[in-house]
């Protein structure tokens, strides 16, 4: 079993940061967002899968609904939520269930170079697409602080760009071992 390291907390920290940024902040909301992720973090360090599952359940039932979307008419919101929170949360669920940091799972599952290259390609593609979408939002300029959506999308794109190589670098390290 792999020892617990701080880098195992990349995903919970990422999700916490993004959720805190995109939801209107109050003390209670922050608590709702942070508490499940803390539970998940503890489950990683203590190797308690059940605690992690409880944390994930709270995350889905309490944390995610803090970001309110009432209609599907706004596809940007839906796309944003799906790509920035829900899909990474699936990775987190995977990590909780396997009780292993995500880069270990990646190393065990896909040890082929083709898979690594494919992941990098999709990472870059996501970044480009999200970056371009942010330009199509009305009055969006990258440095316009009033346009929250544009900034969030940019953040999401950057997070994807950072996140993917982070995983892969670790994978490569393990493969070499």
């Amino acid at each position, binding site marked *: 079993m792999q020892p617990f390291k701080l880098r195992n907390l990349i995903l919970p920290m990422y999700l916490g940061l993004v959720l805190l940024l995109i939801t209107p902040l109050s003390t209670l909301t922050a608590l709702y967002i942070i508490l499940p992720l803390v539970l998940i973090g503890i489950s990683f360090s203590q190797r308690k899968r059940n605690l992690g599952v409880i944390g994930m*359940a709270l995350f889905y039932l309490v944390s995610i609904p803090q970001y309110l*979307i009432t209609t599907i008419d706004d596809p940007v919101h*839906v796309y944003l939520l799906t790509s920035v929170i829900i899909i990474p949360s699936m990775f987190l*669920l995977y990590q909780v*269930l396997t009780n292993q940091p995500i880069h270990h799972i990646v190393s065990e599952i896909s040890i082929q170079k083709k898979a690594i290259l494919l992941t990098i390609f999709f990472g870059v593609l996501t970044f480009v697409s999200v970056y371009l979408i942010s330009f199509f939002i009305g009055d969006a300029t990258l440095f316009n602080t009033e346009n929250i959506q544009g900034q969030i999308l940019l953040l999401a794109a950057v997070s994807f760009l950072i996140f993917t190589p982070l995983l892969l670098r670790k994978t490569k390290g393990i493969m070499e071992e």
Partner: protein
Amino acid sequence: MGRIQWTVYTRIVFFFAMLLFLEGYLFSNLTAPLAGSCLLMFLYFCRLRFEKSIGSLQIQRTILENILYVDTPFHVKTTIFHTGGAARIKVKDIIPKTAMLLQGENTNVWKTQTQDELLLSYQAVFTSRGTHTFESTQIEITDFCHLFTQKQTISVRTAVHIHSNPKELKKAKTAYTQEDVLAMPSLIGSELTREFEGIRAYLPGDLIRDIDWKASSRLQTLLTKTFQKKELLESMILLDCTRSMRRTSGKHAKIEHAIVVGIQLTHLLQSMHHQVGFIAYDEHKIISHITSSFDYQRIYRELATLPTIILTDSYTPNNKRDSQESPALTLEDDTSDQQQFLSLIAPFISGTSVHIMHPLQTSGIYQAIKTITYTNKQKHIIILTDLETNRDSYDDALRFAHAAYHKIWLLTFSTPYYHLDSKDISTDLIEKIYTFEISQEQLRKKLIKKNIEIVEITPQIQAPHIMEYLRRKK
């Protein structure tokens, strides 16, 4: 191939997905159903991945030792070739009930990659003799997320023959005395001529007529005349392997003790240049037949393949005679229809091609005696039995053997010594045992009249004790 099952985590995730849909509906929030849909997609993805990772499994089990003995450890190596994808595989090698695990584990869990070879290695010991079979291996394949699992039992049969404890063999080699060797001719009897060979010191059991009185008075000590050997009798050991012999509730089993005594007697007789043969029989037929020879190993190997013990909870003496158990065996009421039916069916039951004249002839003991008598040569027959099954047949078969001038030793195993726990004794049981013992005694008396040597065996008795008993009886 087993069915893919959901684990508790799958149920939890599915339940939360449903809960998220409900939450979205109640609070008019699209975020929750979106997360729910993604969860369901995640489950579907995991399921597809798991289906792909299940490949074919090939299992090979090897027993490292060539010859296995009771109470002697042996090593098992089970190799599992997995040709599927990455998965978590739990393997449990099912060991026979009579085997006990000593070292290592017969269960292990691996996280496998594609084309993996897994090795399960452990040490075990068998507590009883006979043919035992490793039946199957249980495989549980789970995906890395612990969401889906598939259980399957793969039949990998490995039959092993467990020989009796080698210590018993050593015991047989060391326990018999020179007196036993010298007394053997007089015990078995007719293999001597009356041609004078020499004189030796008197030993208990020597016939009075063989004492050389003149020489004894000269030297003031008893001396016995010895005679030239003409032909040594062939010995045949007949072992009863019926269910009553195999049944046991405690640590002593009649069949196991009978085998030990059989081994010891074989060794004893062969060391005195008697050819020894072996026949094992059950209720209806002969199950093993080895012709007389000096090859000790043949019998020893054959003993390992005999049926093993049957574990039961309690003991109830069988007070019924054959005729009471089966109305078809009643001597007086034989009709021509029954005769015809038996003559057709019995050869199939008893495995003989000869015509069956009477229902009693369908028993294993009768078939065994008939096989021995076939050669028309006088033999020394040692029967190891508990006289509980086919009792009328014993009477009949031994009468037949006696008529053919065979020398017979009947070693009877008294069941209460082996099969009775003092905690289970009740008045009713004691009464039953008493009735049973009386009927056994009647049968013994009947057999003694036919000049058959009967020795009652208890768990402590070994072959040298039997020899001593017979010598003293003489």
